[in-house]
């Protein structure tokens, strides 16, 4: 499969607002938000009674009960808050060094942001480590500002800095990246252990999973310029696998903290396959509207 020449093909734009996000804790879709909360709110879903206290709104008094039992009770309703999401898109050289990786990352950003917005959640998009967080208002379809923001950032020539995974409190974060740290696995582990929980959305290539050096070659890190000479005769696949397994274990750390899991997407996915995988795994249980 090869990446499509158009960054956001029409079917992708159309599908971006069609996914349904599974509400947290089974919230119902008829409130302002879709996520159940233990707090009282203004929704239509009844939660509990409590005794009347001076100052309470008389409109909430259950007059039927008063008529039958002569007791003043206040009806309480459940709160369905709007979730705040932060989508962080990695725009380092490692993501941009191959078009397929960049295409996939930007498409994932569009799908995730568009879906969250369409599901009524407040969503902020941050592109790169030092990029500003742009907040988008929820709507039914991915808004034009979102697409414009993504297109504008995609066209930038200068790659951004490596992510440090600084997640602000009070938001559900999604990080779209390949999570390749130019400073090595130890530095990545340090960053991930320090950070708050988030949902890692990993972009990878098959060559990372199954490396097959056929001849001696120099691998040049797109981000740092560091070089590694790979000799087929000295290549130790077992060591590589160990590092890969450690890398995957590290990604599970922030996912566990966020009560989520790691989502991995092959950079070779075309738009149709990407939509299918998003429906199956990323928005699991949501499906399309």
């Amino acid at each position: 499969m090869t990446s499509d020449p158009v960054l956001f093909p029409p079917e992708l734009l159309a599908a971006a607002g069609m996914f349904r996000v599974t509400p947290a804790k089974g919230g119902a879709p008829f409130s302002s938000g879709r996520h159940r909360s233990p707090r009282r709110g203004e929704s239509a879903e009844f939660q509990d009674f409590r005794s009347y206290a001076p100052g309470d709104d008389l409109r909430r008094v259950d007059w039927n009960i008063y008529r039958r039992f002569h007791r003043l009770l206040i009806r309480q309703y459940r709160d369905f808050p709007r979730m705040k999401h932060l989508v962080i898109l990695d725009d380092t050289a490692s993501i941009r060094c191959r078009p397929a990786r960049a295409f996939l990352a930007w498409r994932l950003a569009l799908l995730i942001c568009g879906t969250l917005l369409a599901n009524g959640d407040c969503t902020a998009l941050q592109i790169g480590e030092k990029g500003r967080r742009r907040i988008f208002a929820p709507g039914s379809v991915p808004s034009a500002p979102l697409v414009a923001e993504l297109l504008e950032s995609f066209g930038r020539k200068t790659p951004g800095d490596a992510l440090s995974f600084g997640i602000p409190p009070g938001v559900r974060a999604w990080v779209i990246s390949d999570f390749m740290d130019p400073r090595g696995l130890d530095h990545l582990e340090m960053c991930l252990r320090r950070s708050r929980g988030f949902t890692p959305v990993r972009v990878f290539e098959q060559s990372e999973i199954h490396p097959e050096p056929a001849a001696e070659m120099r691998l040049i890190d797109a981000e740092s310029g560091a070089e590694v000479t790979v000799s087929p005769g000295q290549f130790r696949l077992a060591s590589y696998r160990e590092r890969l397994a450690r890398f995957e274990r590290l990604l599970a750390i922030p996912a566990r903290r966020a009560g989520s899991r790691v989502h991995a997407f092959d950079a070779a996915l075309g738009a149709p396959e990407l939509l299918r995988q998003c429906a199956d795994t990323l928005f699991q249980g949501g499906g399309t509207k």
Partner: protein
Amino acid sequence: MIFLGISFAAVCGTAAAGTALLTFLHFLKVRSPGVVVPSVMLWRDTEIRPLRRVLLEKLARLLSFLLPLIVILALCGALGEPVWDGGNAEKLVIVAEPAALPDAVRLLKKSDPLRSALIVASGSGVILHDFGAPGQPAVLPRRLVPAEPDAVSALAERMAGADGFVCLMGKNLPPWLPSRAVFFRSGSAAAGHKTPPRVKLALPGAPPRFRLAANELPGVEIVSENGEPDLIFPVVPPPGASVEETELHIDRIRTFLLRSGLLCAESRQMPVKTPEARPLPRRGATALTGLLFALAFAALAADILLWRLRKTV
């Protein structure tokens, strides 16, 4: 700096040839193709520090060329057996009679042109070569052009300064020699020079037969340790001084002769070949041969270590 082994020109030639060959091989070397990958994080165990890593890689690439170059240059230098005398080479002023001029020119060519001068001790008193001058003849000032050789010697002494050497070349020993002067008998008279009494002195590396006389060294003959007759080194110690006391003087004269290359030259009357002559450097001078061999070995070891440490996975 003097070279006791192959000449400086031979050292330079060998080093240039080696450098050219190494450079040719360096650019001929087939390098493995570079492939830009998103990250090498999974390919190596060690921590990657971006900036330092890049610099180290560049340095390692540079060193892979520089270290063999250092090996070659150090080996070439070691073949020349250089001796470092502190860089304060004395000035040499050669005063030659017209008959000894070919010998004097030969001596001049083997000396440092920047620190050598050649005066023809004739009535005209022409400076054929001045310190550092390109060699245009210059006529002495009139007041310094007497016909007496002593006046020319005095001029030479003044030109040589306190640390310089004056080399007088002619048929007959002048009645007065400047301090730190050496007289070389040149021409047919050299064959009839009276042999001074012999004194045995340990001089490893026998010098060739050479007749010379100095102002401070009246007739004592010094023979090399093996005592072969044609290795007679007739040197005259100062009056009243024992042979042991003259060792320093002899050593300095030997150094002077070595530096000037005269020991490897030919006398008109006594052709000498000194292929195995390994004279001693001056006292306090540092033989750099061992140092250069050590440098070559260290560079070779570092190159091998670098080759072993290449980041192959």
